[in-house]
């Protein structure tokens, strides 16, 4: 089995999950497509360095996050400083491609990206704290703190009592 076939069999099946996360990160279908394409290109180039049998999903998400961080840095921003503008999410309410659970989607989109990513990796993608620490390249304590703050902000947005 050559490299291309292995890549197609092991990495490409994660496209759907990566795209979903990329869309939640960027809040734009177009940006999500770019992000995912660049992620797979980098993954393909670095596929020789990936150890078969280890956690390819976490590896792909690590690349995804790095690509996103690089793009933000080029644009003069960083996930830590990305705050929601007054205009609200790029996708207007009601036009969200997901439909349903609109309040939750809006609240999630309104989170600063640094917390949104942590919450998505944990609550949507079900990564462990260790895996998230690897993906975000931060200590586990930071992972816990970001998830906590993300959920606490969601709780406020969704109208619950302050945590």
């Amino acid at each position, binding site marked *: 089995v050559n490299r291309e076939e292995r890549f197609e069999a092991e990495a*490409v099946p994660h*496209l759907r999950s990566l795209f979903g996360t990329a869309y939640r990160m960027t809040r734009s279908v177009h940006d999500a497509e770019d992000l995912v*394409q660049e992620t797979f290109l980098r993954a393909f180039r670095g596929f020789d360095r990936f150890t078969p049998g280890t956690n390819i999903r976490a590896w792909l998400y690590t690349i995804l996050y790095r690509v996103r961080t690089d793009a933000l840095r080029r644009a003069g921003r960083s996930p830590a400083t990305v705050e929601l503008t007054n205009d609200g999410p790029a996708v207007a309410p009601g036009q969200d491609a997901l439909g349903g659970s609109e309040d939750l989607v809006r609240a999630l989109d309104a989170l600063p990206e640094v917390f949104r990513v942590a919450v998505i990796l944990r609550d*949507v993608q079900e990564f*462990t704290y260790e895996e998230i620490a690897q993906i975000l390249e931060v200590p586990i304590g930071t992972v816990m703190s970001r*998830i906590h703050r993300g959920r606490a902000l969601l709780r406020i947005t969704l109208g619950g009592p302050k945590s």
Partner: protein
Amino acid sequence: LNCHPELVTGYVDGALDDLSAAQIKAHLEDCSDCRDQVEFEQSLRKGLRGLSVLEPRGDLRQEILKRSRRRRRRVLRWALPTAAVFVAISILTARTSAGFLAWELVKDHTHCFAPQPLELHVFGSNPESVASWFSEQGNHIPSPPAAAGGLELVGGRRCMLLDFVIVAHLLYEGEHRQASVFVLPNSRAIPDAYATEIGARAVRLVRVGGHTVGVVAETPEDAESFRRALVQSRAWNTLPGPFLTVNALAATIFVRPSGAVAQLGARVNGIHEVTGSIPVSSTKSRQQLTRSPG
């Protein structure tokens, strides 16, 4: 126990160690705020997990696969041929232009000597011993002159030229001066005799007994001394042809002012191969090595 909302989050996710988890669990018995937090976070997780996932458009997968392949093919299609053409041009130029070869030898000399001298591979003043050491390494060279123009053989090293050919590089040393000899494969396109000056160095390319010999020196007089010594050398003019067409010879001789002596001193410390059959440098050389250049 006070409230630790972050640890409660960790508790919800089962990410705490046993002790912390037990403490939080005990705390929850008494704290309704933290119980609310647990309840909210658990239902939030359920809600987020239940969000529908936006599907990528159908052809995105094909696009990704196509782009990966294209990227790879592009490298193969352009990078390799470009490199091959570059190498071919280098070889052709190096082998067909005396000027290029002269320039390359001078450059190689500079590279070997300054600012940090490279190590000698073999160290000795006996021409036959040095020649036989090179032969053992696959560079078959005739016995080089023991001395010329007051410069004495002190050793040599194997150098790679731009066309990846490894040549023998012989070093000579004199009163505050230094010299080297390079051995190259046969270069048919080089004229029988060629003289030029590049920078502060005189270069001579000479054919000796079917081989090409390059001489680089600090003065034309020194270059001429070596050219004459090689041309008049019986060993260089009587060697059987077929042997040398496979691995023919060119020599480059350098002479440098006083600074070179100090540099050679540094070389001596760095020797990493000295064959037993080759005597260590002559007393004269040794004196020169320890003497501070004036």
